[in-house]
């Protein structure tokens, strides 16, 4: 073994020539490890940090959460307070986004709409994890006929448009005092876990033939342990990417359903409802449709940029 040299210097400072000196034999410096070896996740985080749009998207999502939670609490108005003497006001300091046809503060309503949109996003992500991952995992792990039957069910559900499900649910729950938001949740719950189930199935199909899965079997691990402790954690990369790309699409579906009048209804303010109300007066008061539309756009961009960034960062084939 040759004499190893251990050195370190502060970031940004260039060490002077001659400041490098061999470490003393037997000193602890010889044993020093230069840095922690890179793991899959630390490597992914390093790569996503260099992806500017993804970082911006990430911070927009964080800001959105803060605004949605704190915004309506600190605002002097509520989303349903009417002020009929101040209708259709242009943006001012009192009402930065203006007021609507009933004198409600548009900014508070947009911030409240963010709550609904994010609630939809969270429900979608949770269902993806609970139903999509488990369903796809079980289907692939047991394979054969189980797989055939479970995947045909997915195919059938795939064939039913979300719109039809929502219309059917609206008819079904009409006049029964069910919150219309629940309709939207059920509709999204029925359809949005399907892509996840397919992606997880594909991942598990290839992972289950790997030797560590066989090793788990030879040490006597029961099926659920192999699936949930060995296989699914190793499919986490594609799962996270799928969730971040599914969430904006669910948020958009809610906005769309509300826009055409099938989602939440007045006085609750969802971005879709606000945009729909605003369109009616688009010629005279375009700012009423502008702000909810901007909010929808910003959210879509943020989630999609983050999702694209995650996909690039977690895909081992794109590793630099």
């Amino acid at each position, binding site marked *: 073994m040759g004499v190893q040299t251990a050195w370190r210097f502060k970031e940004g400072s260039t060490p002077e020539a001659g400041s490098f000196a061999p470490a003393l034999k037997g000193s602890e410096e010889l044993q020093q490890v230069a840095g922690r*070896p890179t*793991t*899959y996740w630390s490597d992914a985080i390093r790569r996503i940090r260099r992806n500017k749009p993804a970082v911006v998207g990430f911070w927009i999502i964080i800001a959105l959460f803060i605004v949605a939670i704190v915004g309506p609490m600190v605002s002097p108005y509520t989303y349903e307070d009417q002020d009929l003497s101040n209708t259709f006001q242009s943006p001012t300091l009192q009402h930065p986004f203006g007021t609507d046809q009933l004198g409600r503060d548009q900014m508070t309503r947009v911030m409240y709409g963010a709550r609904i949109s994010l609630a939809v996003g969270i429900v979608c992500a949770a269902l993806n994890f609970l139903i999509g991952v488990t369903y796809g995992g079980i289907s692939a792990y047991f394979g054969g006929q189980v797989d055939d039957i479970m995947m045909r069910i997915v195919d059938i559900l795939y064939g039913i448009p979300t719109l039809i499900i929502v219309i059917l649910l609206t008819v079904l729950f009409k006049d029964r005092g069910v919150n219309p938001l629940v309709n939207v949740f059920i509709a999204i719950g029925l359809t949005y876990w399907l892509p996840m189930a397919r992606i997880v199935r594909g991942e598990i199909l290839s992972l289950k033939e*790997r*030797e*560590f899965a*066989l*090793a*788990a*079997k*030879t*040490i*006597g*691990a*029961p099926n659920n*342990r192999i699936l949930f402790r*060995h296989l699914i*954690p*190793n499919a986490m990369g594609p799962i996270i990417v799928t969730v971040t790309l599914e969430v904006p699409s669910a948020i958009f579906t809610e906005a769309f359903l509300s826009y055409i009048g099938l989602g939440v209804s007045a006085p609750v303010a969802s971005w879709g409802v606000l945009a729909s109300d605003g369109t009616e007066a688009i010629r005279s008061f375009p700012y009423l449709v502008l702000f909810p539309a901007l909010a929808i756009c910003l959210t879509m961009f943020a989630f999609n940029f983050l999702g694209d960034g995650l996909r690039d960062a977690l895909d081992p084939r794109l590793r630099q």
Partner: protein
Amino acid sequence: MDTILKVEHLKKYFAVNVGGPFARHKASLKAVDDVSFEVGRGETVGLVGETGCGKTTVGRTIVGLYAPTAGTITYCDENLCALTREAMRKVRSKLQMIFQDPYASLNPRMTVGSIVEEPMDIFSIGTMAERRERVQELLRTVGLDPEHTNRFPHEFSGGQRQRIGIARALAMNPEFIVADEPISALDVSIQAQIVNMLEDLQQNLGLTYLFIAHDLAMVKHISDRVIVLYLGKIVEVDESKDIYKHPLHPYTKALLSAVPIPDPRVEMQRQRIVLKGDLPSPVNPPSGCHFRTRCPIAQPICAEKQPELRDMGSGHVVACHFAG
């Protein structure tokens, strides 16, 4: 010698689709076709043959990763094929496996400590502290630093990973270990370390090995007996010290002639028997003797009659019409 494992008429067929997109039909791939052998307690049996001859399938069927198509596997007077899932899970702890690829056989998301601890965790053996102590002991047994329990597999080299895999296999105090080409993915200098360690472990813990390999020199070193497989069938079985001197089956002769000799002068004079062609498809094996298509001494009888395994004395068994 007391028999620990008895394999009788083991068959393992896999269903495959053959033919083009229009004339598709189901066929069976005969990975293992009527294989019988016994393993004595404390013995090391080498299982050799070229890629695709069914070595790994035999090993995996023994540890219960595959359900056999036909035949029985008797382990300590217990028929493994007739056991329920739950009973099988318990017996499995005595029957362990070491895998070929140390890069694929460890879960990349688990720490070394939890990988080695997992078998004990599954069978709820001991308290947390006892298990942790046992993990340290196991790591020391396989020559790893017990302080490395919190590291992940990717922080180790191939040889070290293989040691982790061996520690995991040893966790449940097994009696029988199927080593599926445990050294073929390793560097030559590391191969010797691992083989020597396996030998030490065998002496200290009284283990029995079924050592699957294609490196005949290594098999000669570690095995007491050698089984030669060709296309899912046993062609020759003998004590390893004899088979290398007096191979009887032409396939064994060809295999042995491929072993390089670490002496350049002798190596120059080595006569190689080069087999013609490739291994025939196990979906549609040749009639009669499976080896006849590549055999240098094949005669018309080989295509008609399948040679039975014949005892040539002192446990030397061979399946060839012209042996002896």
